[in-house]
């Protein structure tokens, strides 16, 4: 690997036209896309919320529905950012050669990768917002603090977009992404407190859970929906932010290597 591949990202505003390009593509399919963003999390929320909720009168000091709502916002945002960074990102880099076309202009790879992360985060923010809207409509929270879930969803989106792009940079084909979803995303959904408190897990798994970014996102989201300021909120936000920065840097190094061939 060339030493040049490790240099720090050089950022410029040239990423913005690329972000606008992705937005214009998305606008053409917006109606079906929004439906897709909503259907999956809302079915989980309502199905499990009412189904399990009737058996579990209370969890973590709230109704099961409210408990589940915080997890659903986070995991839905995570899923949406991951799908965009992996599948759509790979299509733009590899299949449609969109990156190749863009890189022939005064835009650099650093701009392209930044645009990918910001776009995937923007799109996942919309996912988080959609679930949040349902939560508000169902009256599951009345706290003004719940508005903090909007910037939180953006941060979760940035984090998982950046991590997902590492996979995109390494992927030989779409099949590769199956590993990421089975080995990373699904365990995260089950170990990070989406459906039940992390304290229910054996100690070893609790330790694993403490490292995973989704845990930190849920540790912020759940108190906020319950009208309380999260404990150690700076720490949790910092962990998510560091994951985002590290993901950006590592994926950029890998993309530089991949595209220099």
């Amino acid at each position: 690997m060339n030493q040049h591949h490790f240099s720090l990202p050089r950022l410029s505003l040239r990423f913005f036209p690329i972000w606008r390009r992705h937005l214009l593509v998305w606008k053409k399919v917006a109606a079906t896309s929004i439906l897709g963003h909503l259907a999956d999390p809302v079915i989980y929320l309502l199905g499990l919320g009412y189904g399990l909720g009737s058996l579990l009168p209370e969890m973590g000091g709230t109704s099961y529905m409210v408990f589940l709502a915080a997890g659903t916002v986070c995991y839905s945002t995570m899923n949406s950012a991951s799908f965009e960074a992996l599948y759509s990102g790979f299509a733009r880099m590899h299949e449609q050669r969109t990156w190749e076309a863009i890189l022939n202009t005064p835009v650099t790879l650093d701009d392209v990768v930044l645009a990918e992360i910001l776009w995937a985060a923007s799109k996942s923010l919309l996912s988080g917002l959609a679930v949040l809207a349902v939560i508000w409509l169902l009256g599951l929270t009345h706290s003004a603090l719940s508005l903090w879930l909007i910037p939180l969803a953006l941060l979760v989106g940035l984090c998982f977009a950046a991590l997902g792009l590492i996979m995109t940079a390494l992927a030989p084909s779409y099949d590769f992404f199956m590993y990421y979803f089975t080995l990373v995303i699904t365990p995260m959904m089950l170990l990070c407190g989406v459906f039940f408190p992390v304290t229910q897990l054996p100690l070893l798994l609790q330790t694993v859970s403490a490292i995973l970014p989704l845990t930190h996102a849920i540790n912020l989201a759940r108190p906020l929906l319950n009208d309380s300021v999260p404990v150690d909120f700076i720490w949790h936000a910092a962990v998510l932010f560091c994951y985002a920065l590290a993901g950006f840097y590592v994926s950029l190094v890998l993309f530089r290597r991949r595209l220099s061939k």
Partner: protein
Amino acid sequence: MSMSGMDAVISARDLRKCYGGHAVVDGLSLSIRRGECFGLLGPNGAGKTTTLRLMLGLIEPDAGELRLFEHAVPEESRAARVRVGVVPQADNLDPDFTVAENLLVYGRYFGMKDSEIEARLPELLEFANLTHKRDARVPTLSGGMKRRLTLARALVNDPDIIFLDEPTTGLDPQARHLIWQRLRELTARGKTLLLTTHFMDEAERLCHRLAVMDNGKIISSGSPRELIEQNIEPQVVEVFGEQAAVWADSHAARHAQRFEVSGETVFCYVQDAQPLLLELQQQPQLRYMHRPANLEDVFLKLTGREMRE
């Protein structure tokens, strides 16, 4: 070859790029003048596309010096690319967009304002013969239309130099002729063109100067006429027929400076074709064709007749 630095749009010296220990570009030096159409010829794998990628600053050379306009490449390639247009080998138009949207979105990458791009659209669409397809989506276009759109896209920033990587590969003759006509119009307007091709007729028609590349090196360069004069006898007689190879063994050397057998055809390269033609008139079992030497003869002589795969 000496020329003033002012005239050179691109100058490369001893450019080298290795992949896995194999030199894909191996000590390449060339200089391209403002307003000329320069062709890089070579078989597949000769290093043409890698050369273009080096010149755009997309990959880093292992050694050598490179300037594009007044900018050092790759260090200042971003600034240089503001004035460059690129027609890539493989189609990379945005399939989700219409013709006009492709141009609009691409112009933004150059930092152009929407109003500025919109103002250029009619002229670009006209140039590409796509005015009637303005709102058609890319997947509905024919291969020739897509190429023309790619060419229009490369012109959106009104570049001074246009890089074309095999611009007519895969097109039917009508579509190729239209592209050729457009490229001639661009040189007439003073644009500099750098094109790679393995079609000799394309190179002969369009290029003021050519460089033949093989194994990462330039093995000959000059105008099409110079390349032919420098490298090959002026007359070619092609002899066909089952008996051609047998005839060549016994007779060809007597009348031809040089000959090559390829399947059932013998290519005889001669200064004066008359004695050979007289001889062939005595051989009713053989058919033959007499023609002036062309670039393809030069190309095959320099790079060999064996397949490159």
